């Protein structure tokens, strides 16, 4: 591999935003008249968020922080609150925005969190739902929180199972009942909620998974900076666990390498902390052994770290083909696939629900589950055909721009406003009906 030439290193970090919030803060000391005009004119909304939160290393925590940050950029006069869910015996050095902590397995803690938010300045509560992040059987303690919460709430459902157990089904049905609106990230998720869970269509909406705001950089330029100028780069990133199906891409590598001898597969990311706890690095070690058995040591690389966003974007920009070989057909969202779309990558994926929808209309190639041959053929097709590659990249990028976090934040804010307006209207109607009833009874 070529030595990295630092002088040619590209700056592809996402630029620090010259944001509205900063501009308003600056005005306060410079132009008090304009500052007052903005304060009076701009919509103020006080959201609170309930979920896991960084430094916890999990996809939901990253997602929550992205929503909180991107919404806050449009609401310079608001003070968001985060209620973070964490394990009792772990110490998490949270940012100051985390104002309350729920101990995952302590049921009372969920009621305390609801009481805390009921007494707070929050107008609306955004709850991230995934069965595993809350305590109790299938994470059912979250229902205690929602029952006790007196503020309007919206839930983002990160897992929507087509064949849920009775308890899993009950929990999601209750979440939909107790929240004003539930959000899913793809249309098929909404359809499942209507068909399988009997959800009220008025209470379910679709907002795409956000992606970082990355402008397209030709892969060749970034590869040069990473010292991989001559390699065809294939990559998969995220928290590694058995459900990722990475072994099937590794098994596809000999066929790919036969056709493209410079091909290299990058497996980026550490083992999922939850998985590491009960089986250590067993899965990763199995993958490493498989690489050795196939003699692919020069063609498969692992980076066993939780990558920063900038690192991730750099590797993604250098990627020729991004692969999500996931094994669970029911998977309704994937942050990593969303990110790859955002970076405008040629994508090969198994047809789990999320991939099937977001890669439709020429935005990616779908391959069979657990099929090294199918994976190899699709990757070779892309590497052989620059026009196909460009067309996949352009289509992915166009889709990704609409899903950039700054657009998704507007969708969330729009929803928050709609929910609050609906509540206000319902309250006014109830009050007017009450006063009409009183005057009629006189």
């Amino acid at each position, binding site marked *: 591999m070529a030595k990295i030439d630092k002088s040619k290193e590209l700056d592809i970090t*996402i*630029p*620090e*935003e*010259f*944001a*509205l*919030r*900063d*501009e*308003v803060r600056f*005005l306060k000391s*410079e*132009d008090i*008249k*304009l500052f007052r*005009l*903005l304060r009076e*004119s*701009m*919509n103020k909304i006080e959201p609170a968020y309930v979920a896991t939160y960084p430094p916890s290393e999990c996809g939901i925590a990253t997602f929550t922080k992205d929503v909180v940050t991107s919404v806050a*950029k*449009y*609401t310079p006069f608001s003070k968001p609150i985060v209620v973070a869910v964490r394990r009792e015996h772990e110490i998490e050095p949270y940012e100051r925005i985390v104002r309350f902590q729920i101990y995952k397995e302590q049921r009372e803690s969920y009621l305390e969190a609801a009481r805390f938010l009921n007494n707070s300045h929050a107008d609306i509560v955004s709850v991230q739902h995934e069965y595993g992040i809350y305590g109790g059987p299938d994470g059912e303690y979250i229902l205690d929180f929602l029952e006790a919460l007196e503020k309007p709430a919206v839930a983002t459902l990160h897992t929507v199972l087509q064949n849920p157990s009775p308890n899993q089904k009950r929990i999601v049905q209750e979440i939909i009942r107790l929240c004003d609106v539930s959000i899913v990230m793809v249309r098929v998720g909404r359809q499942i909620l209507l068909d399988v869970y009997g959800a009220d269509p008025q209470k379910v909406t679709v907002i795409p998974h956000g992606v970082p*705001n990355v*402008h*397209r*950089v030709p892969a060749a330029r970034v590869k040069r900076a990473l010292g991989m100028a001559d390699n065809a780069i294939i990559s998969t990133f995220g928290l590694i666990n058995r459900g990722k199906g990475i072994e099937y891409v590794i098994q596809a590598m000999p066929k790919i390498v036969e056709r493209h001898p410079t091909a290299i597969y990058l497996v980026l990311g550490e083992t999922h902390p939850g998985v590491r706890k009960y089986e250590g690095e067993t899965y990763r070690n199995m993958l490493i052994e498989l690489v050795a058995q196939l003699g692919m040591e020069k063609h498969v690389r692992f980076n066993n770290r939780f990558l920063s966003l900038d690192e991730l974007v750099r590797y993604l920009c250098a990627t020729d083909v991004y692969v999500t070989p996931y094994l669970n057909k029911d998977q309704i969202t994937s942050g990593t696939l969303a990110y790859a779309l955002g970076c*405008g990558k040629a994508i090969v994926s198994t047809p789990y629900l999320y991939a099937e929808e977001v890669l439709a209309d020429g935005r990616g190639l779908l391959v069979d589950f657990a099929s090294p041959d199918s994976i190899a053929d699709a990757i070779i097709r892309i590497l052989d055909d620059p026009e196909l590659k*460009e067309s996949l*990249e*352009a289509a992915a*990028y166009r889709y990704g*721009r609409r899903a*950039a976090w*700054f*657009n998704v934040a*507007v969708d969330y*804010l*729009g929803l928050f*406003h709609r929910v609050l307006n609906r509540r206000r209207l319902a309250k006014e109607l109830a009050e007017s009906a009450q006063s009409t009833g009183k005057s009629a009874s006189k």
Partner: protein
Amino acid sequence: MEMDLGVDVTMDGNLGIIRLTGELDAYTSSRFKEVMINTLEKGCTNLVVSLADVEYIDSSGLGALVGGLKRVSERSGKLVLVGARPQVRKVFEITGLEKVFPIYRNESEAVESLKRDESQ
């Protein structure tokens, strides 16, 4: 294929018209800010910013507009917007900035309105 910001400026007396194309976001808003400053330094006091061909705007773009409004106000001028597409218009509605920046359907309406204000 890289999304960038196209900027076209025309000046007529104390009126500057800035037409933007593409995306006004964290990558491009500083360039837009520079163009606004240059236009004002060349003697314009009123600005019309056309968003008709802007596909997306983020909080950085809004920040740049607020900065522009501050500079224009210091010169006792006005900054008005033209032709925001639905996705862009939604951003102004959601934030409440539509109450701060008048948005006209087309350039001639915006220019007429500025001239009317000046003659009063």
